[in-house]
């Protein structure tokens, strides 16, 4: 039993990522090579490293948004390890729907869908009743202090910080076993950052496994259970 609990939720082994820019004479950009990282339940691993080191790239590889150039990214999904490198698009979408949430810095707005609907969506997709989904979405939006007048509107016209809170609400409204956070607090004020830190801590207590990137010192210190220095995996090309 303990053995099972200890299995990492994310297991990155020998991960290499490089880009080939065909638009620029086939220039190759090596980001990192041979990178190993394991994340267990209740852990929030905060990626450290200067701008351009590959923090976002690592998160995107774990989300299946970027392909890997070598090595593996294994996700514990339904009790089985799935290597994203060989997974079908259907499997990756299923992992994203049920196991792995991702908060990016920017919200990709879907023109006509209301904020409330957007936040309910992850719940509805996972079989939660409309009634319960709405109640939970409302609670989440209220806790993030998004004015109620905004809830029925699509977030297209919202301020950067408001959009970011919608993004956060979508990912924290249900308990994803894995959460990937790429600067989720970048456009928030101190009060709102504090609220997000509380959400992160609550999710960790419930056993989420997280990888996060935070530029704000206070948020980093409060959220991290461990730091991961990416620079040592830096490759030339």
């Amino acid at each position: 039993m303990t053995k099972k609990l200890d299995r990492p939720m994310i297991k990155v082994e020998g991960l290499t990522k490089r880009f080939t820019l065909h638009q620029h004479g086939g220039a190759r950009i090596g980001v990192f090579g041979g990178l190993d990282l394991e994340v267990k339940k209740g852990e929030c691993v905060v990626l450290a490293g200067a701008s351009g080191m590959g923090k976002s790239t690592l998160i995107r590889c774990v989300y299946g948004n970027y392909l890997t150039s070598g090595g593996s990214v294994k996700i514990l999904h339904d009790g089985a390890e799935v290597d994203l490198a060989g997974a079908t698009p259907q499997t990756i979408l299923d992992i994203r729907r049920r196991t792995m949430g991702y908060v990016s810095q920017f919200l990709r707005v879907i023109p006509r869908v209301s904020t409330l609907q957007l936040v309910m969506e992850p719940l509805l997709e996972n079989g939660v009743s409309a009634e319960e989904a709405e109640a939970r979405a409302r609670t989440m939006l209220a806790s993030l202090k998004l004015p109620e007048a905004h809830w029925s509107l699509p977030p297209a016209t919202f301020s950067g910080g408001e959009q970011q809170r919608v993004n956060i609400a979508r990912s924290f409204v249900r308990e994803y076993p894995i959460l990937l956070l790429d600067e989720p607090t970048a456009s928030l004020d101190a009060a709102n950052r504090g609220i997000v830190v509380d959400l992160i801590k609550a999710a960790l207590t419930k056993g989420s496994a997280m990888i996060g990137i935070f530029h704000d010192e206070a948020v980093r210190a409060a959220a991290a259970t461990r730091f991961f220095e990416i620079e040592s995996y830096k490759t030339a090309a």
Partner: protein
Amino acid sequence: MTTQAPPLLRVNRVSKWFGEIVGCRNVSFDLHPGEILGVVGESGSGKTTLLRCLSGKLEPTSGGAEFLSKRHGPVDIFQLGEQDRRRLQREEWGFVHQNPRDGLRMRVSGGANVAEPLMNLGGRHYGQMRQATTDWLERVELDISRVDHKPRNFSGGMQQRIQIARNLIHQPRLVFMDEPTGGLDVSVQARLLDLLRELVRDLQLSAIIVTHDMGVARLMADRLLVMKNGDVVETGLTDQVLDDAQHPYTQLLVSSVLQL
């Protein structure tokens, strides 16, 4: 692991040549129930040709496509007799053309255009068909009071919405769309896309959408096929193909769009 339902459509090395000219070459993929596949690529790359082959409108030069039919079970579309193929198109598929004129009957009213598929499927109960038509017109946000107007009296965007209702009213399992928002201006296009996105998710449809617009692909498709000169040069999860394109041609396609 989750057990996945068998594919709805299995496409196996479909090629179409027009004499010396290649339409599409050796295209293979599976389409799963509820999945939306986007087909992107520049003009003349073979998108429409592929769609027309798969929807039984055009005989391929070689290859097979097995569809999991409600009526017949798994059948190769190209091996079906003409009559069975037409019935399949009528009962289990929809086809949304870029130009609504190609998908609508211009001489009968908008309402009749929407109701017709039900009548063709042997619908007899006038009241029920009328109700279904009204429901669908509402769903695609058309003014019910105009149900008796002819398609030419509607704007391009409205015609396209009539065409969509006409192609979904009989609850197909698979819908083919060729540039469904192509001829429309941007604001109308955005509304129509939202509508399509909602419908496709609500009805758990499978769809193959041809578009040269990467924004449309991003919004609608789960997975992309990128075509060039008749070949599929890249395929993958939509956001992966758009954010981390591998093939030089895909990189060119993605980089020529300002913001995705």
